[in-house]
């Protein structure tokens, strides 16, 4: 019986925080990748946009998302240098509260362009919290061998201690 889901690696941010969470040397032995995140940043605000790049590339990303805050819904198209697969909670959010996110990447080792889907929620004790549902494409035929979650919209921010991300590999046979 096939073991479809396998944990590839987990990163937990230590004291002092970290500007990025990175997965490198991702083997091509799976069909799809799943990245589950629990993130909080140090931005002065309730949320902090998370950036994602693969293989160190800063070109040819596009993404779209729907985001609701409990009172309104917006949609957005963006990209180019990186993707924004959601929001981490940030310094003004309820203490010790982390966002909950999921990023799915099928056929990551194929020669097709790479599609992404993502969804995440932040919570702020009932006020100014966000839920995001999105999709994206990295228009590149290279196999994905590394993933970086970061703060490219800001420059100098960090993920705080206890932020975690786990990368799973999924096999279809």
């Amino acid at each position, binding site marked *: 019986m*096939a073991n*479809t889901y396998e944990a590839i690696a987990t990163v937990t941010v230590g004291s002092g925080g970290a500007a990025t969470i990175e997965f490198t040397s991702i083997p091509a032995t799976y069909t799809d990748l799943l990245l589950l995140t629990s993130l909080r940043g140090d931005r002065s605000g309730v949320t902090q946009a998370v950036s994602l790049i693969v293989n160190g590339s800063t070109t040819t990303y596009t993404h779209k998302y729907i985001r609701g805050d409990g009172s309104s819904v917006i*949609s957005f*198209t963006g990209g180019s240098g990186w993707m924004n697969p959601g929001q981490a909670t940030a310094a003004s959010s309820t203490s010790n509260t982390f966002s909950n996110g999921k990023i*799915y990447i*099928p056929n990551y080792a194929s020669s097709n362009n790479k*599609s992404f889907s993502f969804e995440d929620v932040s919570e702020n004790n009932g006020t100014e919290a966000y839920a995001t549902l999105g*999709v994206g494409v990295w228009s590149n035929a290279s196999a994905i061998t590394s993933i970086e979650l970061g703060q490219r919209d800001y420059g100098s921010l960090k993920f705080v201690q206890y932020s975690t991300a786990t990368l799973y590999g999924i096999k*279809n*046979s």
Partner: protein
Amino acid sequence: MAITYEPIATTTLSTATTTVTFSSISGSYTDLVYVIYNKSGATNLSLRFNSDTGSNYSSTQFYTDGSGGVAALQQTSTTRALAGVGGADSLITGNVMNYSNTTTNKTFITRGGGGGTYIDLTVSSYRSTSAITSISFQQDAASTDFQTGSTFTLYGIKAA
């Protein structure tokens, strides 16, 4: 540790085709998950269960092209369900809950979209108490082929 997530079948298209079908689906799982990478084609994907062409499907969808607004769509008593929005380099995933029971109608949820097209979240029902043993996917109402390189995978999930 019990393995709860198993691949049932997968196909990568070597030629363009109108319909992709997973048949003879075992009833030994609790839920089904489908994952589709759509190389290119029409905006909407549709599905049918058990080759049922009756007016037994309903879908409620919200979707956007990412330009600011969000739209909603509801269609009832149609002959096919929405399976998620497609388009070039799109990813569609669907969860079909309790698919093999013979007591209740079936419900499922899909998420789809591509960076250059649309994004959607859709909930649907299939008004049949029969166990689901096959799933067929098409683009729109079979008006467009799935293109070479598109991939389709069906997983089974066990609750215990």
